[in-house]
């Protein structure tokens, strides 16, 4: 539809067409503004997605590097899906960043093919991020004190192991617990009484009289030996660590899982709006 062709006809016709053309032109100028605003919003939305993608990658990389050294505990419970969620998060972060660039180019060039590719890839990434987000949120619930308690009792200083994998895990769990209890001045999961209330692999090799709880639960002096072993064994205040390690374990884990889950959720909500806008834009473009 071109105005120029119609301009050559008779006066009456010409005037009516001119009026029509003016109408149309006004309408077009209006929708042109709308489309520019939509374009601007989509570019802005994609910039935010790209930046959030980088941030998500950074967060997940920090999580999988395991700065608190707690991964062996989760690994031994065969419940390390939070780490899986973080690995997916790394991938999704990169993908979102790359796709946001593609999206910006597509929106500015108003290229239908480019935008169709963008939308399809974005939907796939969306599904991945959903998986990561829900996994993290679900497995945060599994990090109960009982989970770590059971594992600690069954694995700490276990002497007879079934196979190589088992002995490797036992070794790592023991090391992790030794380190945890020493560095954080805590004992057991809920407290030293964990070692008294339950039998454990530790109890089968260490007598109750000499080791009511591991000596790492005792308050240590500078040389790394208990300040007063008898006081520690009797549970005299000030010679044993009376608080449990659960907070030390669950604190960082929960924060990470919380971050992966809710930050991912926020990104998904934002991406949802941007994607809907892009689809609308895409369906209105003409070749």
């Amino acid at each position, binding site marked *: 539809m071109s105005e120029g062709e119609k301009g050559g006809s008779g006066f009456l016709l010409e005037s009516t067409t001119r009026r029509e053309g003016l109408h149309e032109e006004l309408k077009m100028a209006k929708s042109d503004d709308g489309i520019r605003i939509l374009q601007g919003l989509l570019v802005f939305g994609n910039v935010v997605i790209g930046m959030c993608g980088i941030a998500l990658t950074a967060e997940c990389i920090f999580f999988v590097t395991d700065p608190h050294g707690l991964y062996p505990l989760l690994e031994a419970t065969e419940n390390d899906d939070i780490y899986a969620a973080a690995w997916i998060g790394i991938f999704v972060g990169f993908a979102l960043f790359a796709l946001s660039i593609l999206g910006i180019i597509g929106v500015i060039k108003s290229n239908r093919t480019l935008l169709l590719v963008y939308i399809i890839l974005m939907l796939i990434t969306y599904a991945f991020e959903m998986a990561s987000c829900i996994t993290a*949120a679900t497995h945060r619930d599994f990090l109960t004190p009982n989970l770590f308690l059971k594992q600690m009792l069954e694995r700490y200083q276990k002497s007879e192991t079934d196979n190589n994998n088992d002995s490797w895990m036992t070794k790592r769990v023991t090391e992790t617990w030794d380190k945890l209890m020493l560095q954080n001045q805590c004992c057991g999961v809920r407290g030293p009484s964990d070692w008294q209330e339950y039998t454990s692999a530790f109890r089968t090799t260490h007598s109750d009289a000499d080791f009511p709880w591991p000596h790492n639960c005792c308050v240590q002096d500078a040389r790394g030996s208990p300040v007063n072993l008898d006081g520690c064994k009797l549970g005299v205040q000030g010679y044993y660590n009376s608080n449990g390690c659960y907070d030390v374990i669950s604190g960082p884990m929960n924060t990470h899982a919380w971050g992966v889950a809710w930050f991912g959720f926020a990104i998904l909500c934002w991406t949802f709006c941007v994607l809907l806008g892009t689809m609308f834009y895409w369906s209105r473009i003409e070749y």
Partner: protein
Amino acid sequence: MQIVAATKDRNTSPRKQKIYQRDFRKAQQYQESVWSLCSRSCEMDSGERSRFLEGSSMCSPWVVLVFCCLGQLYADQSLKPRIAAPQLATNNPTLTTVALEKPFCMFDSSLHPNKSYVVYLYVMKESASAISSLVTDNNGKPLNSTFQQTSGGHTGPYKAALFNVPNCVSPPKLADVGDVNRASDVLKQYLFRVGDDGTCLYDPNFLAVCNPPLSPDTTYRFKYMLVDSTEGIMKEQTLWSDPIKTRRVKLPLKIDTWPGRRSGGMIVITSILSVLVFLLLAGFLASVSSVVMRPEDSPAVTKHISQTIQQSELRPQLISE
């Protein structure tokens, strides 16, 4: 007090006295059984006791009896081995050990300044009290039975330890335990840990008194005895302690690791994301179908930008006309 009660009773009517006497016979049977428990500390000969019973039965035998036994209980508390102060030793009793307070000032009356004494500690399972709870032989000498001989206190008391008579005049101050340098001294003076020695049973060269670990989830009783160390004769003994039970353990297999109810956050995230992804797919289908279904000649609502640019070039023509 007894005399007052008796004289008062003489003034009551003969009929009332008959009723009292009938009650008295019933009461006496019960009393006799209780008296066998009480008799040790109420120091009376049998004549005194019967007079006392007769007098008391006239007014209120039960009240007197209760007072007697309360008084006796109070007296007994200081004459029984006690568990160490729980605010000091928080981990007590454990599975195989029991920390006891040493017998401070319990044997003061029997100590003569020129003689040397030691304190023996006897341990038995509560079930053994039915078999034999004697800790001396016929000559008043303390038994020397060991842990193995009594199968861990199952068949009778065994000697678990001997130590010096604790100092009654200057007992250790429990507050001092906070001082790192004095803590071990205070603990050593204040308490004794039964079941502390895990190795003496298996050491053939060990000749002293062996104090091996107790068994878990078992009730034990303890007794201190003052022995004249030169003559080797029992001078005084405490009562058997109240039953003290060692801890029992649970199996870690029984621990339930299921988290139970889900957190609100997880439900929110899962449900909202499901809805969002459904909406996205619906939107995608809608936009694709709108593109496919659109008739080719029908005008689009919005135009390509290049078109609008072309149109804006027409503007000067329109104005000139």
